[in-house]
């Protein structure tokens, strides 16, 4: 651990990775909590896979057509928001079709991404880092974008705390109090989409859903209120990211999957500890 800290102090690329991880953790804690308590992780999963389509198209336009202003992160953001609104619209208007639409988006998003990556010169090698994360390759410019996204997400998530709590906990009650329930549901999906984009720059789009939901799920075991859960989830996410970076770096493993193993391991541990506790009490 000590050696890792020394290296962080020495190498800017590790500092960037840590900074990106810390920023992403805050969004993860706030939005992950809403997503877990409202039980919509499967929707966030669908959005995550559409992100690859956005990345592929953005890179294609960027390299083949010289749209230099269009970054993969920008493409990912646009694709995620479109996917969120599309799924949200379907789930509000035709709930019985929701799972079909989400499954279709999963596949179509991935397929689009892979096709555009195939026809874009020199991009195939990047595929792995989009799928499984490239936190060690984060540039200072990307950190800026991550910071802005983070401010938007956390700002909205906290500003609308009461409305989102009411909508997540008791939708009927929120409606009676005059909260535009549909609007806030869509807002929640958009926040989830932006968080997915943020986290996917840390662990990649395949693994992002675990990082979005596991810290909040672990926090949910011992928190009695939503804001406690948000703070705990943020701290847990930080722990997983730093822990994953450290073990990954020390053992020369990919950072993204290592972070997820930390998160999954902790979740299993807490679940097992609780089960054991319940057995002993019984």
């Amino acid at each position: 651990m000590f050696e890792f800290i020394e290296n962080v102090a020495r190498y800017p690329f590790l500092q960037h990775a840590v900074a990106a991880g810390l920023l992403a953790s805050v969004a993860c804690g706030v939005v992950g909590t809403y997503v877990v308590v409202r039980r919509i992780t499967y929707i966030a999963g669908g959005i995550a896979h559409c992100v690859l389509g956005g990345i592929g198209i953005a890179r294609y336009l960027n390299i083949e057509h010289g749209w230099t202003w269009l970054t993969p992160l920008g493409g990912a953001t646009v694709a995620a928001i479109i996917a969120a609104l599309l799924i949200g619209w379907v789930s509000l208007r035709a709930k019985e079709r929701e799972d079909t639409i989400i499954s279709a988006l999963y596949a179509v998003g991935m397929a689009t991404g892979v096709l555009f990556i195939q026809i874009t010169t020199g991009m195939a090698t990047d595929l792995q880092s989009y799928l499984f994360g490239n936190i060690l390759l984060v540039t200072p410019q990307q950190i800026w974008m991550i910071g802005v996204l983070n401010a938007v997400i956390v700002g909205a998530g906290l500003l609308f705390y009461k409305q989102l709590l009411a909508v997540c906990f008791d939708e009927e009650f929120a409606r009676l109090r005059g909260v535009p329930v549909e609007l806030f549901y869509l807002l929640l999906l958009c926040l989830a989409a932006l968080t997915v984009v943020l986290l996917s720059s840390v662990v990649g789009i395949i693994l992002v859903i675990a990082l979005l939901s596991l810290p909040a799920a672990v926090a949910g075991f011992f928190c009695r209120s939503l804001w406690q859960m948000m703070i705990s989830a943020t701290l847990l996410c930080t722990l997983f990211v730093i822990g994953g970076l450290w073990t990954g770096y020390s053992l020369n493993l990919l950072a993204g999957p290592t972070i997820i193993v930390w998160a999954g391991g902790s979740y299993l541990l807490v679940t097992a500890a609780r089960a054991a506790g319940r057995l002993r009490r019984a």
Partner: protein
Amino acid sequence: MRRWFSHTSAAPPGCVEGTAAGGRRPRAVATVGLATGAEHPREAPLSIHDMTVAYQQRPVLWDVDYDAPEGSLVGIVGPNGAGKSTLLKAVLDLVPKASGRVMFYGQPYRRQRALVGYVPQRESIDWDFPVSALDVVLMGRYGRIGWFRPVTRAHRLAALDALARVGLADLARRQISQLSGGQQQRVFLARALAQEARVYLMDEPLASVDATTERTIIAILRELRDEGRTVLVVHHDLQTVPEYFDHVLLLNTRVVAHGPTARTFTAENLRKTYGGRLTLLEEAAHALAQRGGGAPA
């Protein structure tokens, strides 16, 4: 019935809206013996005029006309599936009305939200949600606090006060999943109390509570009435109706009778409410079908 009910309440956002847009609505109906607007005192706490509600074209409430007297404790009584829960939901714009008009103190609900409190049936809640009893009760004050203002000490005290009133002061910090069914029920009553509404609509607040809790809740309902508020309560136990309520609304798809309990809660009216259920429904379905397909009036 319960299953239908929980299905509606657990439905995702927009589902109710979806049926509203998709379902065919009968035109506004004019009936024989039509109650004109003039018969409704303008300032009645709750005034329902000619309201019909249908789920997928099957009428559940038919031509309901009712004015709640100010400062009264009203029992809404009828068999399972009579449309009692639907009545409350339609009045609160939670399910669409096929026709009719509902006013609270002369204004539609959307203008009077702050004045109207609602205690739902218990099913609709995700009990694993990480909120404490106090958090839930505080939600009752959201309208007063303001959506973008922090919760102040005064509001917290008001919420604690409401919890104390239902006898749960000690459990304020407890997560709702760790409360018993009767305690959960009382938390939702406390949320409504914390709202300080003038009209209360409660859907079976006395279901599944023990005798002591029932007495506590009834005492609270009486206090509310004595403060001049109007309280409408869906109630199942016919034995206790005369003791608890000054007014009753006997409902079975239609309003069978309403008025002061002593005069209205008679064997004859009860027989009509509980005995003739099928015939009433069929009559209504038949009439609705005719109107839906008939020539424009």
